[in-house]
């Protein structure tokens, strides 16, 4: 038994390198950490570091739901209060709402089981039929303190024809450590639309596990962006299930780890019925001694005819010592489909670099231009311009462009 499992027990064993899904992201280091759930809530301490704004995208007019170490901070939050939108933390929910968790992640994975057992708070969000939420909703999660574990779980339902833009932003103060284990479950009714931006900008040494489980019904549209700006050890998992005909799913992401950071993106796109479309684009640049992992699964089930699934993963290994483990996967059980994936690992285009430098721009600035262009293919599909600019600003600040 490890220091970690003594405090957090589960029936499933922690994954090892022998497990195919965790082969490239060993968690042995996590298990040596002495981590516990924050007791601040019970003690009524409300401290929020000045360096971090409760609304992480200051220029963006948005609703914010703020959680610190997994506990809802009502004074810093601003939740929508209009007709047709139910938005309330579980801890304040009176009748418990009509929660229908359909995800079986907690039965399959150790990380999922931990979240289920030690679940703290989370947002209950329901968008009624044909309601378009007027502003984006930002769920801001902060890890603050040493050895803190948090286990949030959010529930989102967008009913027929509804429209929602949500941002899940996680940050951590520079001297923090511990574990973030967050789950978001969403379902989209017929013709509903959801745009979800996941941003991880965590200082300190936090083990970040996030899992999004989203079910799409007929003709619904989903757009997810996963941006890892900063994070010591990050694992992002997306599980998208298309249950109705004619769904459209876009899964994009970018990761630029530096130092010894470890960033893992696992995506599953499951086409269970016909006429669905999915496109996936993940781009990464590995600096220093960092590690990048990409695993993109696309399933096309029997009878999911006329599915179009496209996936692309492009990587640059920038420095000696950095590594990338990429594993795009296709599992196809229907014949009338168009499916493709492409995966590349390479370097900066030397011709392009030369072209820019020959116009009097130094190497670093030239590389920065190329990186921005490289990222732009992912960033440009973020519709909210304030958010897009803020993400680009954070990336450029971090990488000193």
């Amino acid at each position, binding site marked *: 038994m490890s220091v970690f499992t003594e405090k957090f027990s589960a029936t499933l064993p922690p994954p090892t390198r022998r497990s195919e899904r965790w082969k490239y992201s060993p968690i042995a280091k996590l298990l040596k950490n002495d981590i516990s759930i924050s007791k601040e809530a019970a003690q009524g301490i409300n401290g929020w570091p000045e360096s971090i704004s409760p609304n992480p995208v200051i220029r963006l007019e948005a609703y914010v739901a703020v959680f610190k170490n997994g506990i809802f901070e009502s004074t810093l939050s601003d939740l929508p209060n209009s007709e047709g939108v139910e938005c309330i933390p579980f801890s304040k929910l009176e009748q418990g709402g009509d929660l229908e968790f359909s995800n079986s992640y907690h039965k399959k994975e150790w990380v999922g089981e931990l979240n289920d057992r030690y679940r703290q708070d989370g947002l209950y969000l329901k968008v009624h039929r044909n309601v378009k939420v007027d502003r984006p909703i930002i769920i801001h999660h902060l890890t603050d303190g040493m050895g803190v574990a948090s286990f949030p779980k959010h529930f989102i339902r967008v009913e027929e024809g509804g429209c929602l833009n949500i941002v899940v932003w996680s940050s951590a103060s520079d001297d923090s450590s511990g574990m973030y284990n967050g789950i978001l479950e969403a379902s989209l009714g017929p013709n509903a639309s959801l745009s979800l931006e996941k941003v991880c900008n965590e200082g300190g040494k936090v083990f970040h596990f996030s899992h999004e489980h989203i079910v799409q019904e007929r003709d619904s549209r989903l757009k997810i962006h996963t941006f890892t700006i900063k994070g010591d050890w990050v694992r992002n998992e997306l599980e998208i299930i298309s249950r109705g005909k004619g769904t459209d799913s876009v899964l994009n992401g970018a990761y630029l780890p530096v130092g010894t950071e470890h960033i893992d993106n696992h995506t599953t796109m499951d086409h269970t019925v016909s006429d669905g479309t999915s496109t996936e684009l993940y781009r990464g640049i590995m600096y220093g001694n960092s590690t990048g992992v990409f695993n993109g699964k696309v399933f096309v089930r029997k009878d999911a005819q006329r599915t179009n699934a496209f996936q692309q993963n492009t990587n640059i290994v920038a420095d000696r010592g950095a590594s990338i483990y990429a594993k795009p996967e*296709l599992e196809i059980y229907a014949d009338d489909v168009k499916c493709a994936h492409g995966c590349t690992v390479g370097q900066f285009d030397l011709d392009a670099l030369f072209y820019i430098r020959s116009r009097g721009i130094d190497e670093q600035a030239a590389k920065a231009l190329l990186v921005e262009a490289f990222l732009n293919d992912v960033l440009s599909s973020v519709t909210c311009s304030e958010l897009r600019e803020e993400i680009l600003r954070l990336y450029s600040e971090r990488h000193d462009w």
Partner: protein
Amino acid sequence: MKGTEEENLLSEVTEKNYQYGFTTEIESDTIAPGLDESVIRTISKKKNEPDWLLDWRLEAFAAWSKMEEPEWAHVKYEKPDLQSISFYSAPKQKKELASLDEVDPELLKTMEKLGISIEEQKKLSGVAVDFVMDSVSVATSFKETLGEMGVIFCSLGEAIQEHPELVRKYLGTVVPQRDNYYAALNSAVFTDGSFCYIPKGVRCPMELSTYFRINQAGTGQFERTLIVAEEGSYVSYLEGCTAPQRDENQLHAAVVEIIAHDEAEVKYSTVQNWYPGDKDGKGGVFNFVTKRGICHRAAKISWTQVETGSAVTWKYPSCILKGDDSIGEFFSVAVTNNKQQADTGTKMIHLGKRTRSTIISKGISSGESQNSYRGLVQIHPGAENARNFSVCDSLLMTDRCGAHTFPYIEVKNPTAQIEHEATTSKIGEDQIFYCQQRGIEEEEAIGLIVKGYAKDVLNKLPMEFAVEAQKLLTISLEGSVG
């Protein structure tokens, strides 16, 4: 295609019996089923092996006893009961043969049915055939011609007797005894196989070829092939397989090791058409093979395979690109029909500087079969300017089959350039329509399109094989498209 017509065509093909399904009745020298240390001692003794080899086998057996059968492959099957198969079966005919006339006429008939009449091959095709029937080599031709050039091409059993120093030096250096479950099993109980040695600077004048055949009921086939190409030499090696129809599953766990020294080139081509089981997935061969080659400086190993048979295939011909400037290639066409399952691909391990690898894999699935590509491209930190290019295409012929792609890309060097792409699609109705318009029948049109699709790989096969492979492809897929 309209419903009834499609059904007719489908049944025509699925009911077609396995063309090569016949049993030769030859008295066999078989030891009792089961596996323990004494079986290994018996095999070793029967083959009159030196002590070091027996020790080597026993080490492998000890390692194997502690291993578990792997389950990660995308295949489902009932695990073979290793205690119920016999690990040694040799045609009872031990005396030296001066000419083919002395060979058991039954055996010769078998060869004829397989379409490889030895006389004909000897005279016409210029191919030296080391014919392996149930583990022991019975006829070797062109040995003298090869002997003049210093090329050694014989059964592994013979090599152990006559060139023990070479076998001892290279055996197990590429696929170690404890490499994996089936390789360890093979190391413990291998009965025979082929050995091929090309001396320095020699370009082998003919294609070396071995036909494998699983013949005796209830026997496992544990072949072990060892190819050593000395500095600057060249050899093209062919391996072809057919097996008679059986109801119980037969296990085939072979090991192939290739050592390509500086600037040597080895081309290894396989056409595999073992019994795939009937249309309900009953019977068929389990093909669990470990094939691996090591390339020293500027050496090149090229694997070409056409896989149409076996009920379950589990095979990853690999290249360890150890030397600088070495090259690895993998060209594959895998066809699965009915209930066949194939999980096949390659591994390219880049260790040396400026190493290059190319992977072209074409999967064709039909019936209710499952066809997976699984490949690893690994660039180690020292592999400066390594280059890999991979294409994995899958063609789906029915709405009940599956085509899967599992590429693993691991890069630890910033100068590497890796490209991987995979596509999955079915034959376009417009393509078939186009052919039909010009008076080509649908079935023929499909054959044409499939051959075109697999052309990149078929072109890599030696001439003699390419003809056979094209025939096989057509036979395996006739009428299986809707």
